[in-house]
């Protein structure tokens, strides 16, 4: 495990050089929650990085660990109830083990987060303007008037009509799409270099979802930020992600470019995901191919590969290693495409069996 530097960015090896490493680097992140029933292993050995101007899509279902890992990036877990190990570096500054003081400077400033349900994620008793002003004044000098002007600017930037009027409205007075725009405005008000979006469009209608995804991409261009998009919706990933990370049972099980993952997936779980989603262009005479079984328990994860109880290709692995040995995240045919699977030749299986189902 990497050494944790307590709350400072200076150290013998100055890690603040963001030109040598991507803006967000997550290395061997492990997040565990000790509970009455046992240790919940929410995230295990997760590593990824996102550079400025890039979009990483993290896809997984409930219990995959995608939200837990992202909240860990901003240090939003309760220290008393969480055990974290590994390294998370934002612009060179170490986050794991960093004190509240350091984290406060990063949150809302270098890195910002938007959440799934803007109705519950915004304080119901304060106006949108007041909440954006608060975010601004936490990290910037200036009086209330400048802050409010900035708030109106941001509301305009995210496409809210009559921003000077709406700035004094309460969250419940906005529609769902407008609320999410307001939340994006609040997140971006300090030009953060990293934006983490946790299922930002799940609660929205499909036309509004399209508007919001467009907006996020626009913000990214405008501010040059790195974007981490967490979702269970492969369609969203397809629209905006450059790189994709598939998570299952708290681990990364496949990682690669978006095109790669969607056209040449190499991991049975990804095949299962692609096969089980309906599509507006697919063949309707073919039934959907669901993944049998249910997601794994994080309290008592399966031995070996976490997906093996549900994997239909298990028998193609010699020696039955799937039950006993956890596969490593290794490159397949392409160096930049990693999978965590024992299958010796996933591409062949994909071409012969899976492709017709998925495409």
């Amino acid at each position, binding site marked *: 495990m990497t050494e944790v530097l307590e709350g400072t960015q200076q150290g013998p090896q100055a890690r603040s050089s963001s030109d040598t490493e991507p803006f967000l680097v997550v290395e061997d992140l492990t997040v565990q929650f000790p509970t009455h029933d046992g240790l919940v292993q929410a995230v295990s050995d997760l590593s990824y990085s996102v550079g400025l101007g890039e979009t990483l899509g993290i896809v997984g*279902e*409930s219990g995959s660990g995608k939200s837990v890992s992202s909240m860990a990036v901003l240090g939003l877990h309760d220290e008393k109830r969480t055990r974290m190990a590994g390294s998370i570096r934002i612009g060179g500054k170490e986050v794991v083990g960093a004190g509240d003081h350091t984290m406060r400077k990063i949150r809302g400033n270098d890195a910002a987060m938007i959440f799934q349900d803007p109705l519950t994620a915004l304080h119901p008793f304060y106006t949108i303007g007041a909440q954006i002003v608060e975010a601004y004044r936490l990290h910037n000098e200036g009086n209330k008037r400048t802050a409010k002007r900035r708030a109106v600017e941001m509301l305009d930037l995210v496409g809210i*009509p009559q921003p000077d009027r709406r700035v004094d409205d309460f969250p419940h007075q906005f*529609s*769902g*799409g*407008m609320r999410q725009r307001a939340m994006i405005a609040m997140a971006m008000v300090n030009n953060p270099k990293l934006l983490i979006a946790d299922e930002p469009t799940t609660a929205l*209608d*499909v*036309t*509004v*979802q*399209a*508007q919001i995804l*467009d907006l996020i991409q626009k913000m990214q261009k405008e501010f040059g930020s790195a974007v981490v998009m967490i979702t*269970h*919706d*492969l*369609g*969203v*990933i*397809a*629209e905006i992600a450059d790189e994709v990370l598939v998570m299952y049972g708290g681990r990364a099980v496949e990682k690669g470019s*978006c*095109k790669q993952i*969607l*056209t040449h997936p190499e991991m049975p779980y990804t095949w*299962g*995901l*692609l*096969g*089980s*989603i*309906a*599509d*507006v*262009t*697919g063949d*309707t005479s073919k*039934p*959907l*191919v*669901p*993944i049998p079984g*249910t*997601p794994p328990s994080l309290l008592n994860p399966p031995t070996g590969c976490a997906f093996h109880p549900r994997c239909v290709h298990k028998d193609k692995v010699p020696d039955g290693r799937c039950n006993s040995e956890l596969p490593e995240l290794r490159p397949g045919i392409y160096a930049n495409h990693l999978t965590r699977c024992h299958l010796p030749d996933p591409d062949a299986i994909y071409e012969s069996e899976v492709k017709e189902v998925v*495409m």
Partner: protein
Amino acid sequence: MSAPHDAVADSRAEDAAAPELSGVPLLEVKDLVKYFPVKSSGVLRRTIGQVQAVDGVSFTVDKGSSLGLVGESGCGKTTTGRVITRLYDPTSGTIMFEGNEIGQLNRKQMMPYRRQIQLIFQDPYSSLNPRHTVGTIVGTPMQVHQTVPKNKMLTRVQELLETVGLNPEHYNRYPSEFSGGQRQRIGIARALALNPKLIVADEPVSALDVSIQAQVVNLLQDLQKQFDIAFLFIAHDLAIVRHFCPRIAVMYLGKIVEVGDRDSIYLTPHHPYTQALLSSAPDVRQAAIGGRRERIRLEGDVPSPVNPPSGCRFRTRCWKAQEICAQEEPPLLQIGGREVACHFAEAMQVVAATEGDIAAQVEDDDRAPKLEVG
């Protein structure tokens, strides 16, 4: 699974014995209207307006078939489902079930029809009473309608649980002991208990994980084939609706804007709203293969159903809007194999059918200007 069929076969035999009403659709809805009053805040609580949730909706559902009702929040699709099952009373319009008008029946008269029309709810977590066991939940409909004698109840409940893929031994468990997908199956078992002819499924899979969605959708398709059940499939997920329903109706702000069979709607939509919807739905396969389809982005929000726009309700966000759209409400007219309510209905292929189409589109895209809606 031969035992479960007996009960069902019996009821089907009964229905077969009834005079064949050929040509009469199972469900026919004409000009259905549902308004909710808005009360003033003055001293006297007068009604100052109406939420025009459903404003003149007509469609039919054939026996054993499915009609998909698609639209976004506030379009009235959920309300339509509730009115058809008489959870709400219609403000006006007719609901005909097997040729019988059921919109105005009182509670007692409605009872025999309730056996035929059942409802599956969206949220598997709140639609099951947490204090009732699964057995009670699934058995209550039969108890209320007295379709099964007490001594046969348990067997029937277990049959139903098995039919939906649950362990029949779990009838004594509580909903909290099941996962979301399993709870939805319990809801489905409950809906099946009375051998309905029509099931109104209100967003049956939206609250579930992707891999579980596929399991439940497949289950519903199997049940449809096995028991010849018609579905009114209400959803906002265009892909799932297309997969499940051969016919689809698109709703906007209380009105149906387009109705047609699957291919007509998805390959050659005529109504601008349908085109915008299809354009917004993220398409994994197309993005994977490459190339882009028409990107239509609607501006702004859905208008308030209390004060809908005059004439065509979609005109405030429509790029084709003209004078006439504000003055005259477009009627639902037959164009080709579909009905469209638009003064300027025109086919536009938004999503590609085959790889060839996509490839061709990639070429076109480079040449054609992008359709941005201002």
